[in-house]
């Protein structure tokens, strides 16, 4: 019992929530229930982000994804639903194709996920080391277990500074020599403009149209 790693416990809890509700999204026929399941699934994912030390990304996930996007989605559901609990069921043929795809995709993805020993986590790689370099790293890791388990939380400040073009997580020498990237100012600006364009475009697309009214030509 003392060996229990609380981090792992919470990981599994969140993983189960995430995956379980994701499956519920797939299996549910009612679109609103799908949405609710999606909310829980994405909230679980946000929990996973927090566990992985990405506080800011997790909060963002909650705020933008769950709080914004999904409200929009549900809004859309309500605006477009014909009956109170509409369901558009898929045919069994679709399900067969889907199962085949699930099988194929998982057959591809899962082995890939486990194919790299480096990715197995700090404590699990010992028995599966293959190269000498990795062995050395493993030994080092085992020798300094405490250090390894200490998590690194990326602070908001670092992310914010990198978005305005300053990388604080890199060596100052490397930065001064000009060989390292200078942060994400340009992509940040591009994304901002992109968002603006999207806003205008979405407003334009969704605005009320009256197709019945004949166009008057001067």
């Amino acid at each position, binding site marked *: 019992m003392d060996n229990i790693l609380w981090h792992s416990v919470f990981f599994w809890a969140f993983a189960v929530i995430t995956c379980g509700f994701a499956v519920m999204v797939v299996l549910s026929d009612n679109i609103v229930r799908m949405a609710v399941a999606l909310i829980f699934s994405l909230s679980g994912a946000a929990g996973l982000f927090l566990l992985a030390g990405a506080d800011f990304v997790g909060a963002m996930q909650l705020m933008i994804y769950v709080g914004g996007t999904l409200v929009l989605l549900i809004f859309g559901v309500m605006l477009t639903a014909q009956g109170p609990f509409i369901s558009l069921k898929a045919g069994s043929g679709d399900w067969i194709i889907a199962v085949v795809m699930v099988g194929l995709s998982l057959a591809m993805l899962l082995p890939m*996920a486990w194919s790299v020993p480096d990715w197995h986590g700090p404590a699990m790689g010992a028995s599966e080391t293959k190269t000498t370099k990795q062995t050395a790293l493993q030994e080092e890791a085992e020798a300094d277990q405490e250090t390894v388990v200490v998590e690194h939380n990326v602070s908001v400040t670092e992310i914010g500074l990198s978005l305005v073009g300053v990388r604080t997580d890199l060596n100052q020498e490397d930065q001064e020599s000009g060989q390292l990237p200078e942060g994400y100012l340009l992509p940040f600006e591009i994304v901002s403009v992109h968002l603006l364009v999207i806003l205008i475009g979405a407003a334009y*697309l969704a605005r009320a149209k009256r197709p019945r009214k004949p166009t008057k030509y001067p």
Partner: protein
Amino acid sequence: MFTQPIGVAHYLVVGAILFVCGIVCMTTKRNTIGILMGVELVLSAAILNFVAFSQPAFRVDQEASLGIDGHVFALFAIVLAAAEAAVALAIALNYYNNHSTIDVDRAQDLQG
């Protein structure tokens, strides 16, 4: 199970499951908004992978982690996903205005 530390691979597996769920959701739902939800799941899976790869404590070779880059990419992905959802929703509403349905199987106007 609870005694083992978590690695990137665990996250990858969760991501894979999310991804596959998203794919299945997209292929089996006839509702436009259902498909949108599938897309969200897929994107979420991708973001999960980014975040996992940027945590140095999740892997043996800690120096290989993505660090801030992963977070920033994840942020961009979230933002763009929100944008995509807005536009897709606008398209769906528009489609509903014109066709009085959001069944994608009926959206065959562009059929060859």
